[in-house]
């Protein structure tokens, strides 16, 4: 049988101008016409080619559900944009056999002034449904969204959760031959995410539906897709059964760093300098045993005297992207609540009772000061990961990504002024 999608030698090149600062202004172009540099200097140095995708080849059979995974910047979104015709490829070709609808965002084109009912029609039309189709499915959409009572209220009065539910309800009732979905499950609360995942499973089981699905949620990919592609720096580096591809992806991203030094922007008054993870023997390590204590050390600088400064650590399960634990140092150190003098500080979190189940977690560190009106915040970018491997002892209260809510625990901590 002929494949429903055939991608051949697909490539996409972006040109990055190094001189470019935000948007080009017509004013600058006009001004450039009067500058000798514009006419006499070669501009080659100022721009650089960047291949977001390179020589991508794959085929999808009718009825297949294909997962696409990869780190940020691997080219997943670019690939979906080309397949959706939003942007043209630089070279290569894509052959498609059927009606394509792409869902790259939930609620595209929602207008805040229009009512829920009007937005269902508008969003449906934007997603490529005909008015007739929307009318047929209207009741099902409304029932799925659970916002019946607010149908004639402008969407701007909806809570953000209600907006997402309504938007997803419209999207869930699309019936194209080929459906392209980008990371749309990362919205809403946990129970709604579950409902969406259920709906997605239902959709994938209807015959003849071909789906391309991008997500960072490995659980969802594993559940929905039999086959997956792994993209890395614009190239397909693995194509096969989902479990194998996910294993390969997670291995590629195994990190051994247990310490990171940050160079925060000068403008920040409160800035993280370094983060370190230490095991029960006090050695730097990000591979820890379940049930054994560990510590996290954060060093940060206050450039001004500040009130109610706090440092916090959060753990995000890499498989489900759910934050499982979030804790602040200030809870245990109330005497540091009032004004703190400027200088260098160290906050030490000691996880005497390790509550984690085995798995891999992203570590986020955030510091800030409280008077809400003048909040300053600095967030580490989460490139530290911790792996917990099963050890001899087991924790009594076990945490992992299957929990749907963040635990707010008071982890023993101390704050020391070091400079």
């Amino acid at each position: 049988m002929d494949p429903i999608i055939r991608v051949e030698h697909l490539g996409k090149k972006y040109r990055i101008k190094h001189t470019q600062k935000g948007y080009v202004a017509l004013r600058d172009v006009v001004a450039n016409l009067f500058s000798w540099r514009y006419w006499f200097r070669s501009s080659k140095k100022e721009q650089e080619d960047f291949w977001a995708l390179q020589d991508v080849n794959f085929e999808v059979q009718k009825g297949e559900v294909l997962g696409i995974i990869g780190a940020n910047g691997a080219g997943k979104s670019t690939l979906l944009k080309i397949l959706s015709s939003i942007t043209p490829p630089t070279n290569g070709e894509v052959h498609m056999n059927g009606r394509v609808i792409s869902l790259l965002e939930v609620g595209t084109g929602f207008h805040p002034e229009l009512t829920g009912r009007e937005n269902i029609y508008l969003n449906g039309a934007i997603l490529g449904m005909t008015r007739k189709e929307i009318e047929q499915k209207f009741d099902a959409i409304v029932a799925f969204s659970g916002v019946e009572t607010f149908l004639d209220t402008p969407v701007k009065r909806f809570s953000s959760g209600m907006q997402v539910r309504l938007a997803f309800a419209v999207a869930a009732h699309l019936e194209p031959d080929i459906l392209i979905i980008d990371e749309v499950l990362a919205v809403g609360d946990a129970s709604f995410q579950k409902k969406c995942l259920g709906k997605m499973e239902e959709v994938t089981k209807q015959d003849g539906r071909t789906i391309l699905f991008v997500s960072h949620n490995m659980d969802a990919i594993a559940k929905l897709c039999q086959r997956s592609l792994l993209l890395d720096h614009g190239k397909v580096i693995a194509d096969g059964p989902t479990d194998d591809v996910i294993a390969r992806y997670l291995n590629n991203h195994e990190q051994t760093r247990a310490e990171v030094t940050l160079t925060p922007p000068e403008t920040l008054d409160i800035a993280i300098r370094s983060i370190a993870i230490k095991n029960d023997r006090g050695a730097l390590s990000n591979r820890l045993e379940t049930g054994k204590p560990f510590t996290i050390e954060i060093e940060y600088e206050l450039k001004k005297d500040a009130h109610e400064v706090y440092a916090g650590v959060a753990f995000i399960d890499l498989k489900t992207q759910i934050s499982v634990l979030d804790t602040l140092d200030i809870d245990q150190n109330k005497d540091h609540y009032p004004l703190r003098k400027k200088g260098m500080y160290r906050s030490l979190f000691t996880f005497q009772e390790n509550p984690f189940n085995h798995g891999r977690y992203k570590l986020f560190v955030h510091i800030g000061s409280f008077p809400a009106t003048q909040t300053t915040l600095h967030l580490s970018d989460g490139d530290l990961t911790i792996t917990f491997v099963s050890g001899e002892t087991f924790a009594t209260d076990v945490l992992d990504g299957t929990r749907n809510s963040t635990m707010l625990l008071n982890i023993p901590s101390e704050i020391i002024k070091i400079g």
Partner: protein
Amino acid sequence: MAEYVIKPKRPIGLHLKEIWRFRELFLALTVRDMKVRYKQTAIGVLWAVFQPFILMVVFTIFFGRIAQISTNGVPYPIFVYSGLLFWNYFSNALSAASGSMVANQAIIQKIYFPRIILPTASVVVFLLDFIFSSIIFAGLLIYYHVTPNITGLLLLVPMLLITTLTLLGIGLFFSAVNVKYRDVRYVLPFFIQLLLFVTPVIYPATILGEYKWLLYLNPMSGVIDVFRSTFLSLGSISWPLFGSSILVSIIFFLVGLAYFQKTERYFADLI
């Protein structure tokens, strides 16, 4: 459904078949614009009527009474309103069309459809405004006891068409340029203001004397002058002016369309 192919290059053309396939989206966007326009403003429909009316009053005071511009016996309010009718449609729809790409950038980045739908759909709502302000015009005619010429009435439709082609041409061009150069939206109001003074809206075309040839370059001059002189029985239809209006408006439209088509595929990358 037949197979289709996504390639780096795409043949130049209007792709009318594809546009037809997206007609429902065109309709939905038009309906959105209308609903939002008549919902957001507290005075709703009145706004469409208010703007040309106030302009008419101000122009009547300054140009009719104080500067005493000659209008061949037609009451100045009638004279100026017959021009403002088209001018308001032209300038409002032109600004909306020019800003349409940037205003809808969220959709452009996430969904594919022929981009030309956006500027054209944004124009339709102003046709509705045109109808409302025409009703005011009818009221003014009755108030000043002016009997319009029937031929002039028939001219309304072709004149609207010429105006639409012209503003779409300029609008398509500016909306495409605006994607890349965001400061276009500061240039545009100035440009439109300038156009008002080189178009015989507040003064009769006869004032131009030996510079009359300028009228032939600006389709809006033709629209307003031909409509006014016929509708208010100020003279017979000037066929050369009418003809050049049609011709120039088509040229504007084609040039704008060509530029738009050349750049539209990259909008999502640039915006």
